[in-house]
């Protein structure tokens, strides 16, 4: 029995361990060491190195990765806890109620995505690298869910975020590399501010595992940093820039987990590190709710004009995250809503994760699954239709149950129009999914072998989504959205009919806003601002240039060096010497003028080192006495 809690460790250590053998698969990494391994081994160019038959089985190890986590989510009772005092500076793993829901849907989606990746990518170049990074991201994602302390959360978060960088740029196309760059810059900004936030939280609460009550002591700075740091991950407009670029650029299984599970951890982080339910934060809650609303409505029209089905899905994720941020913001404003709200958020996140992950995998299947038997592609389209309905929250789907779970929060909001706005957004989402299905139906397929098992796994996922409302939801929840969704369906059908009748009607709109909206639009705006600013600030610019010129001139005169390289100037002996003696002088002045920190008496109790020295002294004196006489 005592072994069972160790499942919490196995949940994230096991994928880490698997990363090693998986990294060794594929032709590129191992093909050479067959020889004596001393210096180099060349593989003749005539041998097709993409078929390393021996190392095949390693690719399938990926599938084993999420299993311990799944077991932990299913078997362990809520509240199971394991302390690891030796890890970092003390770590605790625990399965809390929200964590259990997260662990369940995260492990499930990773499992299905692993099956997809193991079968679809095994012959691709660098399959080993992809598999290893996939497992690293998985380990990070699972670790931050089971870890209860700040260290685990941040470590898992950083591991997940940085390994995903490798997933995003896996195809190494120019667009993937550009997406990777945007992703990396924003992810690092987010991570650093999250790190700062967590440090401050630890300092202000005095604990690395703060309880909600501890968190009421937080000042504005950590809250702002947490909102910013995780806002990047969540896709909070305008921090969402990376998301519509990165999710379509990544290979299909990576997109599925990026959009399905990874962006959801932002909500988990907020639930853990904001005083949810213990303190009313009207300003911050309002800000988050407003940001959520903006995100919710901003992403819908931008998504509608996309041409790439994965980009449409990415914008839909942004929009859905906006809804969840709205709910969280409302909960922050009114702590009494917390019990309902937190459960609702977890349920909604689970529902959206499964549906969105399924949709991304379905896009991949639509592109690559077999054309024969003829039933396959229609089945794929049918599956996509079902998942799209689940995503918009059509009655009797998982989405309806999830929507029902967050409804009390929305209805209890101080702003009465929020409920109406959410209903409008549901209509918009329906339109977006209609657009997605339209684009998917028109996708040209490039059939490739090996998609049988991914297809079966996908079908299982759809079955789970289909069962979701009947297992988890009350009968009263099944009929949610019975007005908004049909309205959206009708609208979508009307638009589709019109587009079918007159295909050129909507053409000018498509591709109007490229994926990554703001970042792309910012270029002409930036040029404009620059031109305008140049005209407006010319006198000031001239002054600045004159000052800089003067400084450079002075510097040049002092160092007798070209102005370009400060380092070279520093390297001149006389400059370095003057700096050194200056530092020496400042040190002397500071030491002579300053108040000594400790007087002598205190100093000896300082730090232990001096005591150690005096201990040594005693020994030395003893030594002296016994010295040869």
């Amino acid at each position: 029995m005592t072994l069972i809690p160790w499942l919490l460790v196995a949940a994230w250590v096991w994928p880490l361990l698997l990363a090693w053998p998986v990294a060794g698969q594929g032709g590129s990494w191992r093909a050479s060491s067959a020889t004596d391994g001393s210096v180099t081994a060349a593989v003749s160019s005539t041998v097709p190195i993409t078929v390393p038959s021996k190392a095949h089985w390693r690719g399938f190890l990926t599938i084993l990765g999420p299993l311990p986590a799944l077991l932990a989510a299913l078997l362990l009772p809520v509240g199971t806890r394991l302390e690891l005092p030796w890890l970092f500076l003390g770590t605790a793993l625990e399965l809390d109620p929200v964590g259990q829901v997260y662990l369940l849907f995260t492990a499930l989606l990773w499992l299905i995505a692993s099956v997809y990746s193991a079968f679809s990518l095994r012959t691709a170049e660098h399959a080993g690298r992809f598999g290893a990074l996939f497992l690293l991201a998985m380990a990070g994602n699972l670790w931050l869910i089971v870890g209860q302390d700040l260290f685990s959360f941040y470590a898992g978060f950083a591991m997940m975020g940085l390994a995903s960088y490798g997933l995003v740029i896996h195809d190494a196309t120019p667009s993937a590399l550009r997406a990777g760059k945007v992703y990396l810059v924003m992810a690092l900004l987010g991570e650093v501010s999250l790190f700062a936030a967590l440090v401050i939280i630890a300092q202000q609460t005095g604990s690395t595992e703060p309880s909600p009550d501890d968190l009421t002591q937080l000042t504005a700075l950590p809250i702002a940093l947490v909102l910013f740091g995780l806002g990047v991950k969540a896709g909070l407009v305008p921090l969402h820039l990376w998301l519509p670029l990165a999710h379509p650029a990544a290979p299909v299984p990576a997109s599925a987990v990026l959009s399905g599970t990874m962006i959801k951890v932002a909500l988990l982080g907020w639930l853990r590190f904001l005083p949810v339910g213990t303190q009313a934060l009207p300003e911050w809650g309002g800000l988050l709710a407003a940001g959520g609303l903006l995100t919710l409505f901003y992403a819908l029209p931008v998504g509608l004009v996309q041409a790439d089905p994965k980009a449409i899905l990415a914008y839909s994720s942004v929009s859905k995250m906006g809804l969840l941020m709205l709910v969280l913001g409302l909960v922050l404003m009114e702590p009494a809503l917390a019990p309902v709200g937190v459960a609702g958020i977890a349920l909604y996140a689970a529902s959206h994760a499964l549906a969105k992950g399924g949709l991304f995998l379905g896009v991949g299947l639509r592109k690559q699954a077999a054309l024969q038997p003829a039933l396959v592609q229609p089945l794929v389209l049918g599956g996509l239709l079902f998942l799209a309905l689940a995503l918009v929250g059509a009655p009797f789907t998982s989405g309806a149950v999830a929507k029902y779970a967050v409804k009390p929060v929305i209805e209890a909001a101080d702003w009465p129009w929020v409920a109406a706005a959410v209903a409008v957004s549901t209509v918009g989402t329906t339109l977006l999914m209609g657009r997605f299905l339209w684009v998917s139906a028109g996708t040209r397929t490039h059939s490739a072998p090996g998609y049988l098992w991914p297809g079966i796994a996908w079908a299982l996922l759809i079955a789970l989504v289909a069962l979701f409302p009947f297992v988890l939801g009350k009968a009263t929840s099944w009929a949610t959205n019975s007005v908004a969704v049909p309205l959206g369906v009708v609208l979508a059908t009307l638009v589709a009919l019109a587009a079918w009748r007159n295909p050129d009607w909507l053409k000018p709109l498509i591709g109007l806003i490229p994926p990554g909206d703001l970042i792309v639009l910012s270029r002409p705006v930036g040029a404009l601002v620059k031109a305008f600013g140049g005209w407006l600030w010319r006198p000031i610019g001239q002054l600045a240039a004159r000052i800089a010129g003067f400084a450079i001139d002075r510097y040049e005169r002092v160092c007798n060096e070209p102005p370009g390289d400060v380092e070279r100037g520093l390297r001149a002996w006389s400059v370095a010497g003057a700096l050194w003696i200056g530092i020496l002088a400042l040190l002397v002045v500071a030491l002579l003028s300053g108040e000594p920190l400790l007087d002598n008496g205190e100093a000896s109790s300082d730090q232990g080192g001096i005591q150690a020295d005096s201990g040594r002294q005693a020994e030395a004196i003893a030594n002296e006495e016994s010295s040869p006489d």
Partner: protein
Amino acid sequence: MADLLILPVLVPLLGGLLATALPVRSALVGTLAALATSLSGLSITLLVWLHGDLGTVLGGWGVPLGIGLSADGLSAALLAMASLVALAISIYAGSYFAGSAQARHFWPLWLLLWSALNGVFLAADLFNLYVMLELLGLSAAALGALTGKREAIAANLRYLLVGLLGSLTYLLGVALLYTAYGTLDIGLLGERLGPTPIAATALALMVSGLALKTALFPLHFWLPPAHANAPAPVSAALSALVVKASFYLILRLWTELFAPITDIGAATLLGLLGAGAVLWGSWRALRAQRLKLLAAYSTVAQIGYLFLFFPLLASLPPGTARDDLFAACVLMALTHGFAKAGFFLAAGLVQQKAGHDRISELGGVAQRMPATTFSIALAGSALVGLPPSGSFIGKWVLMRGAFETGQWWWLPVTVLGTLLAAAYVFRVLSRAFGLEPTPLQFVTNARTEIPALLLAFASVALLGLAAGPVWAVLGFGAAPA
């Protein structure tokens, strides 16, 4: 038991002498001596861990006359790091220099350097430290010039002169102390030292001399060319170990011997220089065109982090919070030792196989050397301070301390330095991802790749995941909650 303290100095010294006398067998002698030295260093660490501080006085004359050796937690921690890193460097060097005429010059000087390094960590006598520092500086400069290339010789000539200047200044401080207090033993001096102007002057002289040797910004001018132009194992030793010796001494003098006279103003001055080092070093690393130069500037930045701890230590009263900061400072120094050594060893392999180390042209090379690329990635993530590396915990405690003491201004420095570090590490790593067609040649060389990999791995996993032992060796009860 305390008699054994001499072994980490004596064993490499004898090995170095033997390697000098037997040039043909120098690699064999050197490797065996490296193993023995490493073992002796680790056993001292173990003894300190188990039994607490050790001390002895050589010559049997007792403390004021004889020269003391002592090993407390700080010495033991650095001794252990030096033992492991230097052993890995030795194994790597055995293969790196194999078949080269440089081997017979490398081994004796390397063992003498190692002896001096251990000597610095164990010495309890101010003048003995001067001799050790000179032995360290001379052998390091000679090793750095081993390639015989013009740039290497010019850079190491400057390094040698700077080192001489630094130790001379240190010696003048020692002279003042001996005049005033009549002893050279650190322990006795600590009992007699009071907040007098003479002690303050001596401290300023000693610290500024050592800061020159530690390459604290803006006195780092000699470091990048010297470290970037040395042979790879020597670069690793210089950046990971030699710089740490003088830093260790500053830390010990500042926080122990001169604790009665240090004050917040002077400590803030050191912190400001450290902040300058973090920003300037990281920025230069980002702009560097070559891998080894990048690593050298990154050393400048990482040294800067260590000095950020001084103002925080100065403004905290003795207690758990201060112990944590002290331990975190040591942990960062240790992590940097492992990570930078791993980084330089891997960079040396890249340079050796590719014939150059221009970052912009490394794409295919990185793909051809997966294990080496992985080492660079691991070591790089420790340099950035990503979890679970030791510098992650170091930065964590540093930032928390900055808040606790109200000196929040060190926070943006740390954050900005981290972002810049991530930028320069990913600049190298992004070359490793699929821009090139799949290469046909793969390079594997276990004897050189494994030491680099192990060092990088230790910096990330060993020191980060189990930081507790560092606290234990330093004699601080428990890791921070």
